[in-house]
């Protein structure tokens, strides 16, 4: 079985201070640490686990700058077969649709039985690339997958719905699934794997221009600092009394 995994290099922004450049459309990457998008890492692990059970290749795809090679190479070190990096000239202005389109053009030639992506990217958080890619390829998909099994050309996947409800689907391959975090425990690359990664194939697709953008970033900014907090002072009883009054006043109690 041949598997494609689409991954993305993203900045770790949870605890870092993110600054925006003068164009007001991009963040300044200098002080940030980059790594594979968290959900993509689970998708990659899911592919590696599947491959341990069935023969086949894992091909990694990414749309990004040259620096994205590092997440591809880490994937290769963990055991993926080859990597493809797509770098269009207008990389800075892509939307989710354009990314999916770039991926589709490459993925469709690979004859893949299964395509995995992360369910969401931690930087822009659209959750669109996976499903759009499935549509462009004309194959079925399932999102937010938390469990997966393959048998006789069919996949059985579990999805988590609101309120703790689970849904189980049976889907004919080829299909695309977007993987939820926590589905497995992503491995570390082995030291030998890291050494071998250098010899693996990494194809670069450049000198192309992405087309079909439907959305454009107008501006990125932090909301103005408002007077949102009121600090109550006094003893415990005094403070809790004041808090009750405020909540009642706003009709919340």
């Amino acid at each position, binding site marked *: 079985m041949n598997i494609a995994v689409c991954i993305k290099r993203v900045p770790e922004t949870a605890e870092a201070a993110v600054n925006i450049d003068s164009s007001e459309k991009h963040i300044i990457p200098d002080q940030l640490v980059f790594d594979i998008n968290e959900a993509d890492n689970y998708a990659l692990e899911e592919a590696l686990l599947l491959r341990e059970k069935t023969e086949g290749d894992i091909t990694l795809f990414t749309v990004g700058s040259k620096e994205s*090679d590092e997440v591809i190479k880490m994937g290769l*070190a963990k055991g993926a077969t080859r990597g493809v990096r797509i770098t269009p000239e207008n990389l800075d202005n892509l939307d989710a649709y354009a990314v999916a389109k770039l991926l589709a053009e490459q993925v469709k030639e690979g004859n893949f039985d299964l395509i995995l992506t992360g369910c969401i990217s931690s930087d822009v958080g659209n959750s669109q690339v996976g499903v759009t890619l499935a549509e462009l390829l004309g194959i079925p998909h399932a999102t937010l997958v938390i469990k997966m099994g393959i048998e006789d050309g069919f996949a059985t996947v579990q999805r988590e719905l609101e309120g703790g409800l689970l849904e189980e689907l049976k889907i004919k391959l080829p299909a695309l699934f977007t993987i939820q975090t926590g589905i497995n425990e992503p*491995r*570390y*690359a*082995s*030291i030998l794997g*890291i*050494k071998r990664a250098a010899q693996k194939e990494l194809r670069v697709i450049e000198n192309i221009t992405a087309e079909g953008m439907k959305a454009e970033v107008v501006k990125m900014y932090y909301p103005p600092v408002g007077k949102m907090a009121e600090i109550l002072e006094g003893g415990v009883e005094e403070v809790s009394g004041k808090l009750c009054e405020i909540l009642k006043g706003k009709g919340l109690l």
Partner: protein
Amino acid sequence: MDWMGLKDEHKLLRQDMKRFAETELSSVVLEMDKKGEPLTSAMKKIGEIGGLGILISEEFGGAGMDFLSLIVTVEELAKISPSFALSVAIHNFFGEAILSYGSTEFKKEYLFSLSTGKMIGGMAVDTMNHPIPSNGCEERLVVNGTFSDIFGFSVKIDEKEQFVVKKKGEELKEETEMMGMRSSGISSFKLDENAMSEDKRFNIDSANDFYSRMRLLLASVACGICQASLENAISYSKERHQFDRLIASFGMVRTMLADMASRAYASRIVVYQASSVNNVLDREIASVFTTESSLYVTDKGVQIYGGYGYIKDYPLEMFFRDAKVLEVFAGSADYRKVLIGKSLTS
């Protein structure tokens, strides 16, 4: 700031080890330091991904990577747990010693187990002599002593440097009262006749080369401590308010951070550089500079944390103690400087 000579594999290793350290070490490191216990389950895990056979060639089950790869690995682990990094460094180096000096038969017997972590190796790191009472007996400190299966030390016999390998026995005493590196399983033994019995001995061709590489490994631990102390101090100074301002906005804090960063950057570059060329003096200079720098950087880091730098709730307190141990471990920095000066003038 990064060194130009890093290859992709070194960068990948660094990233892999960063994730390993943050996941496997960070939640337990302070507790284990307090207890003075080794991080044995993490040791097992790093063995599973090949982290205990980095220098050993593939024919003996290792990864056969270069010395810089080990340096980078150790540095990254040391950012979270200097003790654990030291244990990994010494185990790997022990394996390399067997690979370099051991007999074919001995290699076949031990290297597979060592490179996969089935067997843990320890080693005396005090290659440079330490003071002893007049008429006293020499004592050696062994890293990984408490949990290793086999350990080695070097000794001069008939004017020849020899590497002595022993199965762990009762002569190894656990050092429970170390100031730092408390999770490295440090033990000691008296270098008496008993210690020299029932062992395997191998000739070391170029002792200075061998020792300087080990001291450079200690420096890579120090290098990690420098980076981590700097990073911690920077984030703390961007969180802590005093006088209605972030302390990062004060000139005195800024100059301290600049001094720390200069030494942290320089340490890293000098260690990487020294690990990539075959020059004993370069390694000695790098290791003295870096171990002294790590003490400087952690000292300033504690200072920026203030009272919070003095308590065991934050890592700076541990880094400070660990840094001091590194500075003295392989021979006092001041003594080693005398030897460097001697090399420079001979």
